[in-house]
């Protein structure tokens, strides 16, 4: 034991061991802090209070050839009454860059003002930059209320 050359035989020198313990202690501390921090930064999922169905308008509120924006949960929806009195409903969020679209009674089409995107009355993208159609909703009239609901995915 007194032979100094014995030291070189020990697999991990004492100093290295201390460094290793201290280092892993710091790494563990950092992990114990970064994990909660990371979790904290992720916003909790918002509870969509909208449900599957919403009253978009009252019967008679919309004249033929007009449209209105209604609240569907956190997002806007577009309810249209066509020139011949039919109701149509769709998401009002443009599929291009998420502006809110509007009904153009002069063109009888749905128009996005941001980049001149056009959709037809079924929500199909017909001109301009939108890449996809607007999600269409079901419309039901119950009593004097116009209900809009999501289409069940078959």
């Amino acid at each position, binding site marked *: 034991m007194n032979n100094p050359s014995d030291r070189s035989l020990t697999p991990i020198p004492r100093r290295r061991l201390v460094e290793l313990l201290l280092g892993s202690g710091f790494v563990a*501390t950092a992990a*114990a802090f970064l994990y*909660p*921090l990371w*979790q*904290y*930064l992720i916003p*909790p999922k918002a509870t969509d209070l909208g449900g599957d169905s919403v009253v978009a308008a009252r019967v008679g509120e919309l004249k033929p050839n007009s449209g209105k924006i209604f609240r569907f949960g956190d997002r806007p929806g577009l309810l249209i009454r066509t020139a011949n009195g039919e109701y149509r409903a769709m998401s009002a969020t443009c599929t291009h860059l998420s502006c809110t679209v509007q009904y153009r009674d002069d063109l009888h089409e749905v128009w996005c003002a941001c980049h001149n995107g056009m959709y037809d009355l079924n929500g199909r993208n017909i001109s301009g930059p939108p890449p996809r159609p607007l999600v269409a909703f079901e419309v039901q009239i119950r009593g004097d209320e116009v209900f809009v609901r999501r289409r069940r995915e078959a």
Partner: protein
Amino acid sequence: MGFLHNLRDWLNDRIEWDDLIAPLREKTVPKHRLSYWYFLGGITLFLFIIQVLTGILLLLYYRPGENSAFESVQYIMTQVKFGWLIRSVHSWSANLMIFTAFAHMFSVLFLKAYRKPRELTWVSGVILLLLVMGFGFSGYLLPWNTLAFFATKVGTEITGQVPVIGRPMLIFLRGGEEVTGATLTRFFGFHVAVLPGIATMLIALHLLLVQRQGISVPPNVELAWKANPSAQRETKFFPNFLLRELMAWYVALGVLGALAAIFPWNLGTKADPFSPAPAGIKPEWYFLFMFQTLKLIPPKVWLIDGEVLGVVGFGLVALLWLLLPFFESSDPSRTKRWITGVGVFALAYIAGMSVYGHLAK
């Protein structure tokens, strides 16, 4: 290592980095049996940094306003993952910071570290302590709970007792005649913008002064070293003292984390301006000694209102406290013993009144 060397060379070419940190390499810290007290200021700084970081995190979800403040804190504590922990750390760290700031101040007082040329360091430190109490007072209201609401009502009412400027100050603080949502908006602004700005500048000044003047040696140690120069000891600031300080920070972090996790901070009930104050309501512990003093002063002392007397008295004491170094002699063999006496009395008074206030009904 190669990368760090390259980075250093790169910085050296541009901002002469080595010259910039040279003072830190040269800096030494006196070494004697009382050296441990030097850690307290650093720990206070560390807790301030924690406050800034957790405060920024809370700002991600907090919404000021009569109808949203309480709800948003509730949301942080129940919906956001580890939100309860972040808020608990912020509250605990605030209280610990006030405690270490007081401890730091009294250690400086008893080690007589405020003597010439360090008067301005003392003055900036006392102002910082007042700011820290301002942080505590303004932050306390932000969750908009019952205790906070009445604490703010009473606290601002006391401000209103100051002769001449009291009333305008009360209106300014409350944003009107009463404590309302307008008060909350103001306190939020003070807490997250005004006070942090001023405090950061003052801390920079405080640290710059400490750096310029080096760390003080207590007079009796100074005399002993003068008599026997071979007894003089010092530690290099970098890395020796700094590493020890960092270990102290690490321990502080451990204590803080444990307290925050084991004793999470409560939220209480939402403030209702039209409900009576709950029984046994008291201010936070660091205001308790003043609160208790005001309670003990009779309503009329000769011709003066008791409250007014108390408020003016505390104001004068604070002013004298601020100017304390200017009464001291710079000669280590002629330091004023009465200043130490005043310090002992102040500490005993604050501790005694706090305990009394805590126990009193």
